[in-house]
């Protein structure tokens, strides 16, 4: 516990920990000191001079070290002859501060007047208008009229693209450097800076591609003026026209809290549509941030490929006909199975599982990463908080490139490492986390040697010691280079490590699966089973019920002669939908309510943002209607009631309900309308911070790693080993409808080490034909140093249907000059 300091701000006594910045202390006491450059998540810069205040400090007698008292016995105060910045001064005992004195107001007023000398005052067409700190603070502190000539304003470029996603308006910029500092300090990617100096200063990026960061959108939230805007939202709507719906991001397993801003508009034929995504504060999950995939990837919900009505044999039919047909198909099939993905809510998955049990068919989870059963038993438990990790704790990241797979976890882990947590990274190649985080130990292993990772960690004395001595241990595992079986074994080995080092079953400790889907963990918790190979199912089953997955489009399954009766339930027209006998049109998660369980086992609610599209229905309602035709009575109306059933049926969910999930806790920094200047436009959390599931009962705590069921492929001299990797921006059916991300997605490519490329006789930018097993695909060659020699990295969901490591040959398809 640090020492507490008491001071007086505007006559109010405030007691805060020593070292607190004056601006924060004031805010804690409910006093808003105006700021532009200060942000509570960034180091103070003292650049904008907006927070000028009068500070008096008790005079200290140098001989005695005691305060000098005046005739009334009060400490004598010493004021500096000038105003000081509240954002760079820390509190001290007995300090007396005036934020609203005549002198302070004068300083603040002058600062605004100066900032406005060359500000264009184009508020009527500015996206920030209505939620703009400069606008608000000008109203509150600025002069009504400027003494400067309007004609003397310096005019600068107004539409400068900083990459594909962010635009800079140079004349609106007040050079506060929040965006620069956000990138450099918080993300560790210094891709923005000031060019020139003095009056000529301007924000630039010279990275390749420009503004090379997956967190770029956050700079528009903390920009205190309309200088940085997103390509998605600029000139799209005015903030006061927008309604807000609390939601959870569906793009990965982190479960970032977000808000969908919507409005009804003529240009969308009078429909209510999503206009933008903003982060919603949850200091236990995503702070005030989201990644660009979460911010810009929502357009699939309004894609032209959305299914609007059910179909049978390729023709639109009524729900009654479609359900009847589906029910008949399932009833008459002797061999049948259900496959669902982690894109579905807990309520959907629970309903599906009930139906599967009723029909005595297996319920499989569609996932490239296995091991969820181990996360269910050894994952984080109630009360855990990744932001609590720091000095004395350890984080192990195995076979996962967090920056590409779960950006907010990358940020979380990096921050924990900055606070002093020991970071251990086991990965076959250099990832961004390795380059950007301090306090780390790296274990490099070859692709194919995944089975030995944990054993090698045990043998490295320093790492083993760190793991054993860590107060808390959190392990993230992915599946780079691995098939489902290997990743399951890896998860088991990680769980074993938690047990061995004495970390299992404790708060702030546990295993986290870096799943590609928002609710994969929910599926594991609700009893879904992994399926190692889908192809045989499609060859032996009589009927399959596929919900929220596209195995044909993903290249996991190929049409080989015999075809089962296919019931496909999805939101988009996919390759699998085109194969279906019955298509059931589900609505997007933005059109209904439900819960997701994140990779850290946090159950969180999302709320309806827009009306249902066409005649689509929530997944659980469809399944319930199907169940009704098959003699099973399921809840079809209320997601809340379904969640109650889940809480009754699964011990880990015990005691949870929709009301508890909607609870919030006080958070720092404060957010919301009055705090836009302080914290940016990240939205306050009023609709729920979620709850982490409770630990599964003791007694199930002695796992033994199962042996690898399949031999792993290793790089070998003279051959090329293809390895699928996850990239944040892929060409999956959920991301391609977001046109503005196409530049980031790029073309199908293969990444080779310079030496491998040389041996294959190809150079960067050339098009090659990749042949593996009995398949082939074209790809552009990229050459990067971090790839192991003899390996070709192939991003998943980029049009190259590689689902697991394979030996391959490269042929030059086209020599590009």
């Amino acid at each position, binding site marked *: 516990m640090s020492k507490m300091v008491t001071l007086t701000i505007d006559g109010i006594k405030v007691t805060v920990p020593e070292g607190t910045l004056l601006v924060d202390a004031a805010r804690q006491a409910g006093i808003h000191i105006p700021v532009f450059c200060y942000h509570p998540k960034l180091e103070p810069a003292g650049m904008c001079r907006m927070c000028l205040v009068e500070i008096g400090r008790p005079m200290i007698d140098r001989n005695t070290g005691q305060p000098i008292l005046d005739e009334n016995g009060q400490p004598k105060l010493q004021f500096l002859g000038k105003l000081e910045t509240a954002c760079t001064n820390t509190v001290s005992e007995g300090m007396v501060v005036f934020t609203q004195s005549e002198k302070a107001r004068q300083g603040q007023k002058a600062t605004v007047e100066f900032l406005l000398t060359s500000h264009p005052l184009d508020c009527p067409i500015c996206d920030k208008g209505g939620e703009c700190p400069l606008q608000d603070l000008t109203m509150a502190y600025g002069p009504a009229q400027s003494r400067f000539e309007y004609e003397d304003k310096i005019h600068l470029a107004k539409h400068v693209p900083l990459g594909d996603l962010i635009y800079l308006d140079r004349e609106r910029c007040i050079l506060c450097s929040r965006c620069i500092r956000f990138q450099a300090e918080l993300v560790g990617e210094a*891709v923005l*800076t*000031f060019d020139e*100096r003095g009056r000529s200063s301007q924000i*630039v990026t010279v*990275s390749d591609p420009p503004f090379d960061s997956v967190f770029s959108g956050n700079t528009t939230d903390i920009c205190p003026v309309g200088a940085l805007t997103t390509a998605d939202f600029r000139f799209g709507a005015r903030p006061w026209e927008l309604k807000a719906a609390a939601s959870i991001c569906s793009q990965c397993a982190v479960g970032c809290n977000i808000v969908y801003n919507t409005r009804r508009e003529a240009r969308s034929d009078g429909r209510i549509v999503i206009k933008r995504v903003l982060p919603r504060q949850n200091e236990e999950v995503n702070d005030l941030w989201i990644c660009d995939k979460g911010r810009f990837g929502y357009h699939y919900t309004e894609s032209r490929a959305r299914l609007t009505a059910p179909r049978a044999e390729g023709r639109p039919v009524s729900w009654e006909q479609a359900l009847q047909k589906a029910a008949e198909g399932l009833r008459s099939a002797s061999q049948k199975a259900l496959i669902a993905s982690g894109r579905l809510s807990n309520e959907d998955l629970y309903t599906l599982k009930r139906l599967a049990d009723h029909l005595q068919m297996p319920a499989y989870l569609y996932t490239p990463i296995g091991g969820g059963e181990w996360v269910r038993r050894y994952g984080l438990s109630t009360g855990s908080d990744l932001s609590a990790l720091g000095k004395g704790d350890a984080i192990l990241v195995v076979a996962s490139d967090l920056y590409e797979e779960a950006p907010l976890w990358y940020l979380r882990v990096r921050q924990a490492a900055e606070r002093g947590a020991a970071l251990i990274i086991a990965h076959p190649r250099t990832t961004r986390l390795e380059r950007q985080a301090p306090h780390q130990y790296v274990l490099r292993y070859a692709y194919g040697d995944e089975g030995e990772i944990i054993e090698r960690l045990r043998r490295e004395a320093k790492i083993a010691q760190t793991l054993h001595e860590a107060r808390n241990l959190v392990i993230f595992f992915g599946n780079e280079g691995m098939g489902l079986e290997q990743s399951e074994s890896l998860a088991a080995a990680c769980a074993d490590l938690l047990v061995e080092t004495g970390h299992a079953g404790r708060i702030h400790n546990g295993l986290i699966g870096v799943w590609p889907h928002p609710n994969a963990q929910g599926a594991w918790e609700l009893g879904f089973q992994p399926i190692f190979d889908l192809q045989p199912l499609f060859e032996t089953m009589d009927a399959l019920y596929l919900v929220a997955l596209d195995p044909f489009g993903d290249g996991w399954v190929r049409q080989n002669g015999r075809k089962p009766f296919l019931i496909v339930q999805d939101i988009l027209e996919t390759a699998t939908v085109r194969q279906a006998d019955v298509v059931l049109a589900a609505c997007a998660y933005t059109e209904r309510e439900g819960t997701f369980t994140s990779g850290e086992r946090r159950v969180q609610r999302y709320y309806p943002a827009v009306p249902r599209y066409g005649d689509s229905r929530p997944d659980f309602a469809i399944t319930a209607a199907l169940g009704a035709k098959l003699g099973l009575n399921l809840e079809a109306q209320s997601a809340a009631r379904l969640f109650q059933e889940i809480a009754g049926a699964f011990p880990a969910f015990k005691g949870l309900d929709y009301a508890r999930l909607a609870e919030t806790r006080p958070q720092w920094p404060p957010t919301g309308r009055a705090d836009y200047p302080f914290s940016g436009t990240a939205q306050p959390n009023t609709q729920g911070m979620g709850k982490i599931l409770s630990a599964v009962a003791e007694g199930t705590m002695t796992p033994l790693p199962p042996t690898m069921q399949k031999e792993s492929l290793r790089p070998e001299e003279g051959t090329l080993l293809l390895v699928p990797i996850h990239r944040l921006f892929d060409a999956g059916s959920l991301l391609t409808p977001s046109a503005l991300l196409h530049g980031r997605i790029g073309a199908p490519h293969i990444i080779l080490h310079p030496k491998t490329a040389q041996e294959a006789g190809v150079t960067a930018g050339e098009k090659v034909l990749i042949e593996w097993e009995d398949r082939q695909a074209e790809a552009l060659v990229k050459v990067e140093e971090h790839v192991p020699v003899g390996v070709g990295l192939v991003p998943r969901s980029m049009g190259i249907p590689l689902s697991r490591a394979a030996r391959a040959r490269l042929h030059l398809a086209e020599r590009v000059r």
Partner: protein
Amino acid sequence: MSLAQKYSQEIQAIFAKYPPEQKRSAIMSLLYLAQREEGYISQEAMKEIADMLEISVTEVAGVAGFYTLFHRQKEGKYRIQVCTDLPCALRGADSFLQELAQALGVRPGETTPDGRFTLEEVMCVGACHRAPVFQVQHGDTITFHENMSLEEALAVLKKLE
């Protein structure tokens, strides 16, 4: 050839001045080196310096952009920088600049067709009392020339190789 290959010893000597964990401090010396080599700091040079210092190329560009004596465009071999701030102007720097421009056949900011000279108008060079004054920047050296008349200035330029 890259800077690292061409000047490996000099670069080693530069890095020796700073503790390894503070090696980004070597940025100024490396920028000087790059500018001496080509007369300006190219994109490639910035990239190389960034890699050497393990910082982003944007950070290197930011430092290069802050200092007016680092240049990012290829210009004349010699940069003639005339101060025309108020005290210098009072001693005739304005007309001196115009005369010099005329004699060289370029406008301030431009380079002579033979690529030898770039004439620049700059802020204070710290010799107000001896204006008209200009400095010649070439490689990593700067030479001052004070109390100049047009004839004297042309004589100075003629002597430059």
